[in-house]
């Protein structure tokens, strides 16, 4: 056993389960080779206890000669040296020999086995042909030897004796027997494993359960369980072996944790000893016997135990082809060890752990590199990079510890520390002595000099960074870079540091990590200061000064840096331009007046609100805003006047350190409406909505561009000189909001856009390159404008109405003596008023003054003297005007106004919104600012509609006038009168008795006059209806006249028509169904008048003047059946009392009081007469011009009653027809010309005598 341990079997880990061989050694030796070869050839299934999964296992064995010492003594836990199977070899075939020697030998062998309690044995009897031949002489069959052995030794286990036939021959029989032997051996071996390992595990568990007992030692237990691990490893069961180590690991960890929780195990004290050796992991040996011995002796330190445990785990993991788990576990281990040493309060020399970790990291990396190719390594950076970074970190802290990072180099104290650290490393291990790149050599070298340290540190850093980059862990890479930058800064090499810092900063800024931003920026500031980059430094300082994460002192310091520079004078120092955003933010811009639109020359103030981010108040020599000027073009003007807000809020999402605004919300949509108007007539072509800031909104999506990072100002930032500027000198900006008021230039009309803002502090300029959203104000120049509008709607014609004149002076100054000249018109006189006052108000609508207006009226012109009014003010005054209601018929001749313009006749028309007839009144006003007259229109509404009609009763004539109030107000009518203009003899007798009449809204008043004449009734009457009216609630003094002229023609009754129905002969009454006679008697009443003769008569051959009439009997209600001729022509002599009688037969169809059938009498005009009618051209125009007015009257009126003008109308139209075809035609008489006496008469009709037929009409 001793000799076994001395052998290097454990080192190589190539040991196999031990199988002892007793008996015929010569025989065994001859078979050994093939046995050793064939045994592992086929796998066996190993069924496990405790429910562990069965495994296929290739069995190998180390066959050794049986010695009694090999058998384990009582209490020996060594498993590795445990003989799992004992074989007794014999080829004895001779019973004598068997009985003589072999049996005894076997017996002895068996006894010694039994003494040690080993039951795993087998006896192999080898049979050869030679022996067979030998046996031929023998009587005993060879089988009997086997039987004998079986009966002697294997009393119940016949399988413990195996026969191997002709092992050295190449025959199927030999192969068969080999196979069965191998199978047997494998089975037995596995049985032995199961049994012995099971027993071992039970023992081990028992031992583990005792761990709470005093005196229990982890190290002892460690050795036991490791033995099991060894066996598994020996059986190539690395997984199981690893489990053993992991269990040990967990157990130990738990103890350490319990220690931390106050539960101390005695044995742990040995691990709490101060660490004296920090030589790092050693992974090049399968088993580090040195450390193992230490553990066995209970002298190992915590680092030793951990190192050893890890080296074993590492070995197994590599066997298992899981190198990446090694790196992961290594990192955990290293972190864990550091924690555990802290937890156990083990005293460690400062820096020693760093050494240990550094060496260990590199050792693990080397080990991994040793078992993987480059491609594998490159693709698994993510597993190794942690170790690289950790090693870098540790080396850096070692460098700092040993004074290798400073500019000056290590001090003697640093050197002492270095020596102490190096001492703990011990000597280099023999494995790596020859390796040039061993971790040990690296560390020693790195700690030996500043240069070597730098070289190693840079190498590691870059390696780590590159790996991080390669796997896309950019943040980690930047952090390493930042750490490198810190190193460079300490080395006094800011140039190299800057890039790393900037890169890191960019990443923090873009992701909005304010604290790292501040910290990195501080470092950058230091770096830039060293580099002498004044502008950048000042910019960074400005950012720091406004950084809320810093203390006031730090901010003040940064601010002071800027101010100090700014205060420098002299030509040598150039002006420095910095971004405004870091210094102060433009938060709001306000225009006074708020419309941001003034007339040229007016005062416009712009108030800026600047939020100063500096911690102290800063005196600024000048704040200037540059302006871009655009000449106004009219179209734009109207649009912008609406959209310009008085106050513009500038939305700063955040300061540079806050969360990036882009990610939070992004810029708001700025929408604007656009109108595209045609340039010629200003009509709308198209309209739409545009987004004004698409460039900003779209940009956010395309890339993750960092939000406003005013870290560095682009060189393009510069104030444009020469442009117009808003300037304010000497402003002190206090921290927080400051208001600065500018007076904006407003000389030229146009659009002014604020472009840039610049604050100058000594040599430093803070520039805001773009003011966004864009801010504009507008200066306009306006022509004077005069408008007239009614004070109240609607303006009623006929009554005095107030209208308001509004004069927007625009750029014109109304001087004293300026007057408006209104051309007077008859239809709309201006009513003079004494109390007419003018109000002047400023553009803001505030009343400035009020003065009495002097109005002079001459015949043609009303002159209004205007009070002096400054430009861009509003002058208002009111005038009372009266629109005369046109009386309807007569038409004034064209007249010219004073200014030579043709007077516009007010035209009346019906308005769709109101039943009232509208009249447009135009005013022509001469204004002092223009050589042209201003034309203004007012619309008045006539409140009345008037209708007239002629009524006749035989020869008597009546005139009815109907006045309808179509307005919404009530009137009183007084002094209603009707006069005839031409015939003085004519007397019109009013049948209306009331002096005053109420005319309510939407109601009508009817008036009736009887016409009395003395000599002759003129055929044409020119009538004037006149009345005075006033609003009902006003007194009588305000009565206004209202006239209505009309003409009645053909008033005289020419014919009277009488009809008589004569019952059939012999009957007293008419009977239905019986023919009756209808006698129509037409009588000429008057002598013909001149006009009539010329017009329609013709001279008969006998000299008598006759006219032709046509009569027609028509019964529209089907009461009568006209039999025979229903119409006919009569020739009437044109003398008074000429009578013509016509007999017509009619038959009543019903009984009862039937109305007479209608008898129409029409004028018959032969075709020759047509040419004679020449319509008056005036009346034709009249017809046209008044047609609208007439039409409404006509439509409503009863067609039968009012035809005075209607007849003219029809003549005109008939005339037009006639011009085409000269045909004879019929013309109806005017109302009252033919008087029907029997109109509406009735006659009694009796039912027919035929009684038995009764007709019942049920309707």
């Amino acid at each position, binding site marked *: 056993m001793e000799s076994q341990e001395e052998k290097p079997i454990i080192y190589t880990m190539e040991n196999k389960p031990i199988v002892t061989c007793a008996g015929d050694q010569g025989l065994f030796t001859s078979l050994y080779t093939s046995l050793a070869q064939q045994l592992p050839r086929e796998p066996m299934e190993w069924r496990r206890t405790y429910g562990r999964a069965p495994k296929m296992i290739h069995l190998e064995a180390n066959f050794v000669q049986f010695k009694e010492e090999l058998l384990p003594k009582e209490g020996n836990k060594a498993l590795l040296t445990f003989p799992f199977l004992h074989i007794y070899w014999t080829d004895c075939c001779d019973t004598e020999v068997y009985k003589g020697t072999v049996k005894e030998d076997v017996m002895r062998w068996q006894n010694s086995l039994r003494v040690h309690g080993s039951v795993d044995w087998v006896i192999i009897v080898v049979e050869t042909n030679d022996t067979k031949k030998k046996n031929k002489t023998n009587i005993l069959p060879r089988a009997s030897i086997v039987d004998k052995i079986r009966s002697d030794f294997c009393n119940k286990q016949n399988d413990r004796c195996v026969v191997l036939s002709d092992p050295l021959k190449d025959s199927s029989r030999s192969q068969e027997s080999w196979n069965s032997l191998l199978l047997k051996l494998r089975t037995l071996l596995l049985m032995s494993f199961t049994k012995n390992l099971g027993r071992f595990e039970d023992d081990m568990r028992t031992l583990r359960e005792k761990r709470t007992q005093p005196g229990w030692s982890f190290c002892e237990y460690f050795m036991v369980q490791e033995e099991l691990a060894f066996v598994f490893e020996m059986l190539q069961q690395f997984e199981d072996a690893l489990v053993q180590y992991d269990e040990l690991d967990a157990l130990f960890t738990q103890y350490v944790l319990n220690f931390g929780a106050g539960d101390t195990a005695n044995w742990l004290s040995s691990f709490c000893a101060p660490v004296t050796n920090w030589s790092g992991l050693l992974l090049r040996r399968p088993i580090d016997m040195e450390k193992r011995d230490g553990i066995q002796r209970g002298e190992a330190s915590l680092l030793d135990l951990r190192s050893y445990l890890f080296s074993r785990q590492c070995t197994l993991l590599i066997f298992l082809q899981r190198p990446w788990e090694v790196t992961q576990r290594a990192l955990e281990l*290293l972190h864990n060890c550091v*924690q555990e040493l802290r937890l156990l309060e083990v005293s460690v020399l400062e820096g020693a752990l760093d050494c240990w970790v550094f060496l260990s990291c590199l050792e693990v990396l080397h080990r991994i590199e040793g078992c993987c190719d480059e491609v594998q390594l490159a693709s698994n950076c993510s597993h190794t990079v942690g170790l690289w970074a950790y090693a870098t970190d540790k080396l850096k802290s070692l460098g700092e510890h040993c004074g290798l990072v400073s500019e000056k180099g290590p001090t003697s104290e640093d050197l002492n520390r270095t020596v102490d650290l190096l001492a703990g490393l011990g000597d280099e291990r023999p494995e790596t002595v020859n390796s040039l790149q061993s971790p040990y050599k690296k560390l020693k070298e790195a700690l030996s000099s500043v240069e070597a340290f730098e070289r190693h540190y840079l190498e590691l850093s870059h390696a780590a960074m590159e790996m991080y980059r390669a796997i*896309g862990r950019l943040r980690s890479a930047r952090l390493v870079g930042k750490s490198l930058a810190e190193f460079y800064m300490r080395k006094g090499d800011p140039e190299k540091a800057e890039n790393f810092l900037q890169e890191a900063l960019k990443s923090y800024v873009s992701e909005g990590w304010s604290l790292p931003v501040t910290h990195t920026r501080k470092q950058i500031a230091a770096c830039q200061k060293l580099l002498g980059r004044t502008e950048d430094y000042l910019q960074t300082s400005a950012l720091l000064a406004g950084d809320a994460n810093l203390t006031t002192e730090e901010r003040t310091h940064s601010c002071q840096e800027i101010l100090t520079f700014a205060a420098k004078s002299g030509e040598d120092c150039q002006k420095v331009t910095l971004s405004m955003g870091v210094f102060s933010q433009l938060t709001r811009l306000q225009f006074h007046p708020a419309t941001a639109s003034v007339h040229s020359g007016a005062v416009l103030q712009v108030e800026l609100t600047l939020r100063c981010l500096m911690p102290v108040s800063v005196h600024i020599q000048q704040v200037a805003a540059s302006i871009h000027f655009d000449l106004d073009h009219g179209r734009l003007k109207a649009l912008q006047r609406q959209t310009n807000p008085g106050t513009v809020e500038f939305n700063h999402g955040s300061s540079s350190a806050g969360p990036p605004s882009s990610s939070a*919300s992004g810029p708001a949509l700025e929408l604007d409406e656009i109108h595209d108007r045609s340039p010629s007539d200003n009509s709308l072509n198209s309209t739409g909505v545009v987004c004004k800031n698409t460039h900003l909104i779209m940009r956010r999506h395309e890339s993750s561009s960092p939000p406003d990072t005013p870290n560095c100002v682009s060189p393009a930032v510069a104030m444009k000189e020469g442009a117009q500027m808003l300037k304010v000198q000497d402003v002190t900006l206090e921290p927080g909001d400051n208001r600065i008021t500018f007076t904006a230039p407003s000389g030229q009309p146009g659009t002014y856009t604020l472009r840039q803002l610049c604050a100058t502090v000594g040599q430093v300029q803070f520039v805001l390159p773009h003011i966004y959203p864009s801010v504009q104000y507008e200066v306009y120049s306006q022509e004077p404008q005069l408008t007239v509008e009614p004070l109240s709607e609607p303006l009623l014609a006929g009554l005095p109405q107030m209208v308001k004149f509004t004069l927007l002076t625009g750029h014109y100054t109304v001087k004293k003596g300026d007057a408006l000249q209104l051309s007077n018109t008859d239809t709309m006189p201006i009513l003079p008023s004494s109390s007419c006052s003018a109000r002047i108000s400023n553009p803001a609508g505030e009343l400035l003054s009020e003065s009495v207006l002097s109005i002079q009226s001459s015949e043609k012109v009303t002159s209004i003297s205007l009070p002096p009014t400054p430009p861009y003010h509003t002058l208002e005054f009111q005038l009372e005007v009266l629109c005369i209601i046109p009386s309807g018929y007569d038409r004034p001749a064209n007249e010219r106004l004073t200014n030579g313009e043709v007077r516009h006749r007010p035209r009346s028309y019906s308005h769709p919104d109101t039943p009232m007839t509208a009249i447009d009144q135009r005013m022509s006003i001469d204004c002092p600012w223009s050589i042209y007259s201003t034309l203004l229109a007012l619309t008045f509404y006539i409140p009345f509609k008037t209708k007239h009609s002629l009524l006749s009763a035989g020869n008597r004539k009546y005139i009815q006038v109907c006045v309808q109030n179509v307005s919404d107000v009530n009137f009183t009518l007084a002094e209603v009168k009707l006069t005839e203009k031409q015939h003085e003899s004519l007397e019109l007798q009013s049948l209306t008795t009331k002096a005053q009449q109420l005319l309510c809204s939407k109601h009508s008043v009817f008036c009736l006059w009887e016409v009395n004449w003395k000599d002759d009734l003129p055929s044409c009457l020119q009538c004037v209806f006149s009345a005075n009216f006033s609003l009902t609630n006003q007194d009588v003094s305000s009565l206004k006249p209202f006239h209505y002229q009309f003409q009645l023609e053909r008033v005289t009754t020419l014919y009277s028509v009488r009809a008589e129905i004569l019952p059939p002969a012999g009957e007293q009454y008419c009977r239905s169904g019986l023919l009756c006679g209808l006698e129509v008697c037409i009588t000429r009443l008057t002598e013909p008048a001149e006009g009539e003769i010329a017009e329609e008569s013709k001279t008969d051959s006998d000299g008598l003047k006759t006219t032709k009439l046509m009569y027609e009997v028509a019964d529209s209600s089907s009461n009568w059946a006209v039999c025979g001729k229903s119409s006919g022509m009569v020739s009437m002599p044109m003398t008074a009392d000429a009578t013509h009688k016509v007999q017509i037969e009619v038959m009543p169809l019903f009984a009862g009081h039937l109305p007479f059938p209608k008898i129409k009498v029409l004028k018959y005009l032969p075709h020759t007469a047509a040419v004679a009618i020449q319509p008056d051209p005036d009346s034709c125009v009249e017809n046209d011009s008044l047609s609208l007015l007439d039409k409404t009257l006509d439509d409503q009126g009863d067609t039968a009653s009012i035809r005075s003008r209607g007849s003219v109308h029809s003549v005109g139209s008939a005339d037009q027809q006639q011009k085409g075809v000269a045909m004879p035609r019929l013309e109806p008489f005017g109302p009252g010309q033919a008087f029907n006496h029997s109109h509406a008469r009735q006659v009694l009709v009796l039912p027919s005598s035929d009684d038995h037929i009764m007709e019942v009409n049920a309707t």
Partner: protein
Amino acid sequence: MAVCISVIAKENYPLYIRSVPTQNELKFHYTVHTSLDVVEEKISAVGKSLGDQRELYLGLLYPTEDYKVYGYVTNSKVKFVIVVDSSNTSLRDNEIRSMFRKLHNSFTDVMCNPFHNPGDTIQSKVFDGIVSGMMVTAG
């Protein structure tokens, strides 16, 4: 017991970050920021394999000598990162998970607040209270 708890927006800027006052705040900011590397790595790795049925808890992002950094990502890609002191070994994975769950619940409450503008930093006192609770006692 957490030493630092942070909520990070989808766009990787901090919505909330709070650490124990006794220690250097800056260091935690760096740690949490760097941990986003691993969060992203894990999210993309998970995204490929499982699609929408993913586990929100990302587990240990990476250990450092002094701290353990755990990650959790909501379905809307808001990340929670909890930093735990390495010496605090009594914390189990389950406790970390429940911390995250609690944090997520509270975060959801904050988001449900109609006055909270998603994307703004979290100012909620209730949330603050929950975080304080987790920083004082385990789980």
